[in-house]
């Protein structure tokens, strides 16, 4: 009986808008309406996740391309963040025997925090989310619309010159 070889990381390619910058990469996920900013280390790992390249090879590529003293722990940190951002096609299981380094350990190894892989994520806002959100409830108290309950399919917004909380179709 043979065990299945561990899955190699494979990046998502569909439903994404990708815009490389000089030392970062922006990714917009059309399926989830999230936007991500990958720093150079995270982007270098992500673009090499082709389903054929293993973690040790990714670490070697990082050392060569980003000129940082990256080891497999740095790659695993990048993969964890990319997975959390749903930018990989499938979860890559972290080997149970491997030691999971803390960020502090990794900064010590790399010599700088700037070399740590970072994926920043925001949920793209709806147009209405931009608008003023304070309204006056039935009790005459001003509060954020988010605190004014509305039935499913409706959202709260200011209505009228007295900025009363009203529920309008979403």
């Amino acid at each position, binding site marked *: 009986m043979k065990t299945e070889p561990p899955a190699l990381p494979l990046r998502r390619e569909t439903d994404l808008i990708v815009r490389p910058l000089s030392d970062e990469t*922006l990714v917009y996920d059309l399926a989830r309406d999230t936007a991500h900013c990958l720093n150079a280390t995270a982007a270098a790992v992500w673009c090499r996740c082709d389903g054929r390249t293993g973690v040790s090879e990714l670490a070697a590529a990082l050392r060569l391309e980003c000129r940082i003293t990256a080891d497999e722990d740095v790659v695993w940190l990048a993969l964890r963040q990319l997975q959390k951002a749903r930018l990989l096609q499938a979860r890559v299981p972290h080997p149970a025997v491997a030691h999971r380094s803390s960020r502090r350990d990794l900064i010590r190894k790399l010599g700088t925090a700037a070399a740590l892989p970072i994926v920043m994520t925001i949920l793209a*806002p709806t147009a209405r989310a931009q608008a003023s959100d304070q309204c006056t409830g039935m009790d005459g108290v001003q509060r954020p619309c988010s605190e004014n309950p509305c039935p499913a399919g409706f959202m709260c917004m200011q209505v009228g010159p007295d900025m009363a909380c009203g529920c309008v*179709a979403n």
Partner: protein
Amino acid sequence: MEELDRLGWAAGLAFVAHGVRVGIRANRAEVLDGLEKRLPLGWRPCAHQRVRHLYSLVAAGEDRANVRHFHVLYADAVRVLRTRDLQSVFSFLEYDLEVYVAEQARRRVFLHAGAVGWNGRAVILPGRTRSGKTTLVAALVRAGATYYSDEYAVIDDKGRVHPYPTPLAVRTGTGDVEKVPVEALGGRAGREPLPVGAVVMTRYQPGSVWRPRGLSSGRAVLQMLDHAYAARYAPERTLAALLQVAARAQMLTGVRGDAAEVARSLLDRVGRTP
């Protein structure tokens, strides 16, 4: 929608704003009087019979004994408001039209941001409601900057900011909003589009000292996207415009205290940029 179409419509108007065609119809002609001053800035009448978005206002008749009538507003086929106060309908309509046009504008990207011009460049201040945008815009105008907007930074595909000079929505001590024309502050509104010199992500925090730090282009675009009306509707076009801005502008972030002090510092910084 067909059921709505069958109702008797006494009057209607169609207009185009930023490439978006919108129609408004009502069952009583007189309720549309005076509505024009509530339409989005830059609107012009449109002769087209077909519009992309249609509001239908069924205005209530006189109440009778034991019968109360409501004004009902529909956006396309969806009922969005039912109220006895006609002014509430107009306020809602004004708000909803602005948001719709800001989201659907064809060749512009609307950011929820203040904007001023200085030495041929724009300074834009993206921020949430009550983050102090209007206060800082007013301070910048008092310090000599040209007023572009206290609500929308309207960006074209070259990354330039266009004026959207509605009266400033200044909050009074009681929390009410007072509309103040820029001329009342001793300023004037800009007319020409300007390239962006600085994007400033800041919010008022009492007692804070303005010590801005730089933001990378990627992070700045991500933060601007968080204030973009069309972030979901047209992400590709929105990103393209924001990348144009990020390619040329300084990106600054930090909390601020006194607006007048920050205004002087910002204008000095933008003025020094080659």
